[in-house]
């Protein structure tokens, strides 16, 4: 059985490795122009043309905005979810607004935010925050409301203060849901950062892609694109690792 699971594990990477030569062959044999769809070797070449320090600079700029925006979003959304779960009044007034904000395309708001906040880091953080906010609030609220009513009865029968009921019972109970929300949000945070860079930035992988394509350096844009996917994937894995390492119980099945 073990060699099967090993095969399963490396199957995606293996498939990718087999696709690369096919991609290369198709590009070469059909003479696909590089500015339409570059071959892997061309992408690799243009990747090497750019200095590693510059890659790191762009990568760090995007990662920074994504992580800060995500962190900010997490810091606002979880307390907000706690308040909304605790107060019907708050949830009834705020929830419609959240839905409206979520329904408005962030890409469309981005230029407006830039005019509001100027062209610094603030609007980029705001855009990332906006795009990651909704899944975090909704998942946290769902989790907190899924807490067994008996546990709430237990807390009340102990005459424990309401904030303890939320902090010591509802919040931990919602962690499996929050982590699901975080996995969605962390990949969205990269999207948010890139969208913001498209609109106004002088650094970052999003900026780099726009800059490259405007000079028809499509292979370079592809290299940046691959970078973005890899960061997204790495961040997703990081969240999963944090979950399984520190909150292993959230991954085990079976009710308790």
């Amino acid at each position, binding site marked *: 059985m073990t060699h099967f699971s090993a095969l399963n594990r490396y199957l995606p990477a293996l498939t990718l490795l087999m696709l690369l030569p096919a991609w290369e062959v198709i590009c070469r044999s059909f003479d696909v122009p590089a500015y339409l769809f570059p071959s892997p070797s061309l992408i690799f070449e243009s990747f090497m043309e750019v200095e590693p320090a510059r890659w790191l600079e762009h990568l760090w700029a995007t990662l920074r905005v994504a992580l800060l925006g995500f962190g900010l979003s997490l810091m606002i959304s979880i307390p907000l979810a706690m308040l909304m779960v605790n107060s019907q009044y708050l949830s009834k007034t705020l929830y419609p607004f959240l839905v409206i904000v979520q329904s408005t395309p962030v890409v469309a708001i981005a230029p407006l935010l830039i005019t509001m906040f100027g062209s610094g880091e603030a609007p980029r953080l705001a855009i990332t925050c906006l795009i990651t906010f909704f899944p975090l609030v909704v998942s946290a609220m769902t989790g907190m409301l899924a807490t*067994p009513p*008996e*546990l709430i*009865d*237990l*807390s*009340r*029968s*102990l*005459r*424990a203060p309401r904030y*303890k009921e939320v902090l*010591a*019972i509802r919040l*931990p*109970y919602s*962690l499996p849901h929050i982590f699901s929300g975080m996995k969605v949000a962390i990949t969205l945070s990269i999207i948010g950062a890139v969208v913001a860079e498209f609109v106004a930035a002088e650094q970052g992988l999003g900026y780099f892609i726009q800059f490259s394509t405007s000079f028809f350096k499509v292979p370079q844009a592809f290299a940046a694109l691959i970078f973005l996917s890899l960061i997204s994937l790495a961040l997703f894995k990081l969240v999963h690792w944090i979950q399984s390492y520190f*909150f292993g*119980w*959230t991954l*085990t*099945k*079976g*009710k*308790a």
Partner: protein
Amino acid sequence: MQPYVSLKNVSHSYPTDKGKSVLALQNVSFDIEKHQFVAVVGPSGCGKSTLLRLLSGLMMPTEGQVNIFGTAVTEPRDEIGIVFQQPTLLPWLNVTENVVFPVKHKTGRVSSQTRSQAQKMIEMVGLADFAKRMPNELSGGMQQRVGIARALLMDPEILIMDEPFSALDALTREEMGFELLRIWNESPKTVLFITHSITEAVLLADKVLIMSPRPGRLSAQIDIQLPRPRSAETIHDPAFATYASEIRQHIYHPHKAGEDSKASVTAINKKLVNL
């Protein structure tokens, strides 16, 4: 001596969304003596859960009075431990931490005394080897044992159990019934045991309260005078069958029950007393 727990003409109604109200309990009165084991049997909708919430002080009755130790219940009290239908353990805490959770939740810390008491309770429910296990590593029966240990931690005078074994399979359920009797023998408590099972009620209780639904009313009280300690043998006692069929009569034919079967129970009780 005044009763430990007493309900006097208790009614309770819930408001509905449409502005009306639904009567969940109507004019219920009964007493529970110290260290008595009382079972409540009745079909769904007979107000058993309302009864639990009123007794534990989570709700106030709309009419009548709930008294514990002679004083009216106005808020949850420390003398009551509750065991729920589902074990409802906290999945991020191990068995010991789950057992001490109420104290930690209430006071913010756990003394070493409480910890050793928790150890004792865990031993009493037969989980000594599992104290460091996580809830998801335990079977349903073991989880409910943790729930019982948690309820017993602060040595409450009164233990309220809301269909505690209903989520368990039939074999585990039977075993848990006898376990509960053993624990009750070791540390006597006043118990209110809510159940759907007539067999379970007769086997465990000193007194069975029979409720009827919509609105929840107390339709009969039957004293069970089967000898203790009770065991699997008790079920074969002819008196056991008489009690069970009497209770069944009250549940399914509340109007016909009464004269003839009451006579048979009285006869049985007399006979048992004379033994």
